[in-house]
């Protein structure tokens, strides 16, 4: 069999910095590394410009103060930490809040065209958990604008891009740390190695381990898994964000995202009795800043200073749990969600202008006119707060020469991410990772190849195994079983017995993937591609389930039915995942201590 396969020779490249992933974080990292003088390559699984960032709708959070001049980085920092229930790495949240405005303005220098205020400045919109209107946006397609701007910038700079290539292994040695990355060209199935002293992971998230998700096929946890297998650590993996508003019908699009901007622009959530139920779910923690009646909530859209925020704009974990409870109590919509109503709140013209792609999406995919009828919505797996444990200032992982930025990095968002903080995270830490990787590479100036033939041969053999086996397990079947289990057993509400069940299932699937086989050959073979992505999905699923089982409390994106409240002891601890001998182990690590000047920000009462 092997003899028939073409191209067993391995294509070799040398770079200073290799960036894995071409979403917002990867592109921003590559631009920075290039501008610092590093020979830089971008490696991505899809065509350039198709990465998941393109799906981001609402906007980029940055305290530019264009709409509310009283906004500043301290307020943004405070909102972010409180949204993450104080489990965020304070230093990441600080850098993020401080640098986001410059990162947004820079996009404009590169050709981005944001919506404007009457004064001609970048317009900013309201979003859940943000005290002021803070999200720079372009209608409801901000992610597309961000990725296109960065893509065009990277192309203009002449950065090398390896499209439709998957990295299956990070190559390390004891002396240097990172020495390169190994992968294959999806198009031809031929193998390729990038030798490089610095690798930046910007691979996004893990949503494809779940059945109902807003994430695309690319979100198979590659970076999380590659880092873990290379000896790095992951933090906060138990925290998975379920976005409150995914489509629920038709089944074909179940999980597809409905932007939070619908609520930011005035949309409200109602149950089958027509009641705005979010007023019943305001937690003690956010009582002081949340309106407790409809009149005040409605006044807030025009006057933030004298009114409190509507409860529909509580952080996502709160809203998702509330929807879940309403549906469980039998007050759901016909297809098992609740109603999101903007039709009765804003004019058809406003809706089409402010939310054009939502209008389009419902019209095309559900035959629903959102200017006339409410949408049916329910929670969907959207984002993983957990990721590679990094040093905040440099985005460096625990392995020398390895960096991580964007969703694949952990710590920034604590136990729950605020909407709009993802796009700004990509830009702030993408840039930092690019700069650190370039400076690390400059110190190394490696001229001799460090990747050994043995390492390459081993990586190649592992990748070819599913093609050479006959009559084994079907990867599509195993993937479907994993997604069912994660959805049912490691979802929004968790219990000890279900988490244990999930871990048993994962253990059995780990056995079964040893015997995967796929039909066909190496040229653009999706079955083979899935077979190589599956081990990553299983690894991250194991991390999530194990950490979720260990954390005996409820906080942010982790809710335990058997431990329903937050606990102060757990609030001071991070769970760190590492891997040895193919199995994930956990250690408890004290939370980094916030300095006093920042800690005082949490003593003030909010306006």
């Amino acid at each position, binding site marked *: 069999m092997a003899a028939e396969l073409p191209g067993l020779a391995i294509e070799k490249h040398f770079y200073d910095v290799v960036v894995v992933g071409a979403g917002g974080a990867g592109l921003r990292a590559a631009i920075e590394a290039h501008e610092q003088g590093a020979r830089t390559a971008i490696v991505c699984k899809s065509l350039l410009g198709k990465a998941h960032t393109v799906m981001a709708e609402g906007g980029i959070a940055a305290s530019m103060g264009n709409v509310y001049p009283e906004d500043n980085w301290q307020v943004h920092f405070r909102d972010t930490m409180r949204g993450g229930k104080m489990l965020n790495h304070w230093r990441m949240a600080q850098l993020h809040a401080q640098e986001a405005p410059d990162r947004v303005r820079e996009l404009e220098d590169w050709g981005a*065209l944001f919506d404007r205020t009457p004064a001609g400045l970048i317009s900013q919109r309201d979003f859940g958990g943000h005290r002021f209107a803070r999200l720079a946006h372009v209608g409801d397609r901000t992610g*597309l604008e961000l990725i296109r701007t960065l893509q065009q910038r990277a192309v203009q700079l002449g950065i090398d891009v390896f499209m439709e290539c998957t990295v299956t292994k990070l190559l390390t040695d004891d002396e240097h740390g990172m020495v390169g990355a190994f992968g294959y060209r999806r198009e031809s199935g031929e193998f390729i190695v990038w030798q490089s002293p610095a690798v930046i992971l910007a691979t996004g998230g893990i949503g494809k381990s779940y059945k109902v998700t807003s994430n695309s096929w690319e979100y198979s946890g590659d970076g999380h898994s590659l880092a873990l297998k290379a000896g790095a650590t992951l933090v906060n993996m138990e925290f998975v964000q379920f976005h409150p508003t995914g489509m629920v019908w038709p089944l074909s699009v179940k999980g597809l995202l409905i932007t939070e901007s619908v609520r930011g622009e005035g949309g409200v959530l109602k149950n089958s009795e027509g009641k705005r139920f979010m007023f019943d779910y305001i937690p003690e923690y956010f009582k002081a800043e949340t309106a407790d009646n409809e009149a005040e909530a409605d006044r807030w859209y025009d006057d933030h200073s004298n009114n409190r925020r509507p409860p529909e704009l509580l952080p996502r974990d709160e809203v998702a749990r509330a929807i879940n409870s309403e549906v469980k109590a039998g007050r759901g919509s016909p297809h098992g969600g609740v109603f999101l109503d903007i039709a009765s709140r804003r004019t058809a013209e406003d809706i089409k202008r402010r939310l054009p*792609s939502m209008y389009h999406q419902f019209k*095309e995919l559900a035959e629903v006119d959102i200017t006339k009828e409410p949408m049916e919505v329910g929670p969907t797996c959207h984002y993983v707060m957990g990721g590679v444990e990094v040093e905040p200032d440099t985005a460096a992982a625990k392995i020398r020469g390895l960096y991580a930025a964007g969703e694949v990095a952990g710590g920034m968002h604590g136990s729950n991410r605020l909407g709009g903080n993802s796009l700004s995270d990509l830009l702030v830490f993408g840039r930092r990772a690019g700069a650190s990787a370039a400076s690390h590479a400059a110190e190394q100036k490696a001229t001799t190849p460090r990747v050994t033939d043995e390492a390459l041969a081993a990586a190649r053999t592992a990748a070819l195994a599913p093609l050479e086996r006959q009559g084994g397990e079907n990867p599509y079947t195993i993937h479907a079983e994993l997604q069912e289990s994660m959805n049912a057993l490691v979802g929004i509400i968790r219990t000890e017995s279900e988490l244990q069940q999930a871990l048993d299932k994962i253990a059995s699937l780990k056995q079964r993937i040893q015997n995967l086989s796929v039909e*066909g050959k190496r*040229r653009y073979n*999706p079955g083979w591609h899935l077979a190589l992505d599956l081990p990553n999905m299983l690894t991250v699923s194991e991390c999530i389930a194990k950490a979720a089982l260990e954390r005996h409390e409820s906080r942010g994106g982790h809710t335990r039915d058997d431990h329903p409240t937050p606990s102060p002891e757990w609030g001071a601890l991070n769970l760190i995942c590492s891997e040895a001998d193919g199995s994930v182990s956990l250690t408890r690590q004290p939370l980094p201590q916030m300095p006093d000047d920042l800690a005082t920000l949490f003593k003030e009462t909010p306006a």
Partner: protein
Amino acid sequence: MTYQAKLRVWRGDAEGGGLRDYTVEVNEGEVVLDIIHRLQATQAGDLAVRWNCKAGKCGSCSAEINGRPRLLCLTRMGDFDENEVVTITPMRTFPVIRDLVTDVSYNYEKAASIPGFVPREKGPDGVHRMQQVDVERSQEFRKCIECFLCQDVCHVVRDHEDNKKVYAGPRFLMRIAELDMHPLDNLDRRKVAQENFGLGMCNITKCCSEVCPEGIHITDNALIPLKERVVDRKYDPLTWLGAKIGRRPHP
């Protein structure tokens, strides 16, 4: 609600191939991409198809359905009669890699050859000020998801391989128009549009606008205005005189 659909899918690669018949289950509300995925999972594990968002936002799953360029994720099975055979073929203008996947590198080469954005200086307060009405013209073109269906349908390249060298196609002529209408861009792009990217070869049949899944008025709002500006420049008597007496570059 569930029925068995008759599908005819092109299978093969650069060396050759042909249409193959399949029968696949369809449920209410499903789109063609769902059916392709079911086919992959149950009957043809190695069937090659590009896709990402499955929401009409990334422009990856472009193909031809019953001969018409469309996104697989935005084409509902409900649009077809249950007894109708639905034929799915790769985009014809680009070389096939395998099954429904084509080599779209022509588009990336054209994108790389367009002179980049050149912004004017910021205002005295260090920011760019622009009015909403001024950004909206280019914003329409920036809605483009780069599905390349307009490139696929454009007859200038669809049946004339040689034209690819000298013609950028609607997507990238629109990109030039976008930069030309960008309130901050400082470069005059009219000459290159005509001379390097083949603007003159477009004869405004509007096929591109018809297949655009984003509903962008490519011809009316981008290509025709750009053509008009090129003409203005060419026939502007002052430009002509300036060129004659050597004070300005030749138009």
